[in-house]
């Protein structure tokens, strides 16, 4: 008869949780959460707290269902690579948008559609720099 193998602290969820408090969210996401199922599960709150990065707006139709699901979890959305060169103010609310940049209008249209489905509101939209290639856009959607 063999004695049962002693548990490693790395197999105990409560201990892993404490270890993860000493890791950066980035490190948890790209390393720790990919080790095994248990680590993935324990890291779940960290993964979800991060806004989704939407990189291929707006021409990727396949991502729509996934995007919605993700949005339900995170309630926040980050959009990357918006291809426009039109300058916009740093902070704008959804109601002040009257820019005629097609992609911008399209973006707001899509965001509004998604927010309606989930009864979310665009409460804040932060533009980190003038909108141009690879601009990061952070619309925060809340219930």
């Amino acid at each position, binding site marked *: 008869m063999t004695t049962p193998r002693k*548990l*490693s*602290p*790395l197999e*105990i969820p*409560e*201990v892993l949780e*404490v*270890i*993860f*408090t*000493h*890791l950066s*969210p*980035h*490190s948890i*996401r*790209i*390393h*720790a959460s*990919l*080790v*095994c*199922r248990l*680590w*993935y599960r324990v890291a779940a709150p960290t*993964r979800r707290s*991060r806004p*989704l*990065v*939407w*990189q291929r707006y707006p021409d990727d139709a396949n*991502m729509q269902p*996934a995007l919605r699901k*993700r949005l339900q979890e995170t309630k926040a959305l980050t959009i990357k690579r918006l291809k426009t060169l039109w300058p916009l103010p740093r902070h704008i609310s959804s109601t002040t948008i009257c820019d005629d940049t097609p992609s911008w209008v399209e973006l707001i249209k899509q965001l509004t559609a998604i927010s309606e489905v989930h009864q979310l509101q665009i409460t804040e939209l932060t533009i980190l720099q003038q909108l141009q290639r690879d601009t990061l856009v952070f619309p925060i959607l809340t219930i």
Partner: protein
Amino acid sequence: MKVTLESSDGQVFTVDKEVAELSVIIKEMLVIEQANQDHPIPLLNVGAVELAKVIEYCEHHRNDPTIDDDEDYDSRKKPIEMDDWDKQFTIVNKEMMFELILAANSMQVKPLLHLGCRYAADIVKRMSPTEIRDLFQIDDDFTPEEQDKIEWEKQWTKL
């Protein structure tokens, strides 16, 4: 007032009550068993070697202000202070430190648990998932479907 503790391998340690009370579990047991102090408190999951180290840690930190709220330990908000003594204390091999983490977890000595977890976090911090698995002999138990999902998530969430 003194308290006696018994390790899983039957060794008995006598310590001051306030030292033992750094362990949340012992503190609670002492409240329940106030009247019955003739028997040592059995610590079924903690061996004598580890218990001696835990007691050494508690002796040194006996006068620290108690932190009741777990939130206060969250290093992302406030890094826990590590004095020279703690640094010296953590110069042990990985196996010993892991035994101490287990002991601290089962006895609920929270500052020691955090000290140990910080040590573990420092090891895994810069390692890839594969390196972590190899070092700690953890099985990659993701199903192919889960692997796909992870790959997909990675695509959409990479920095």
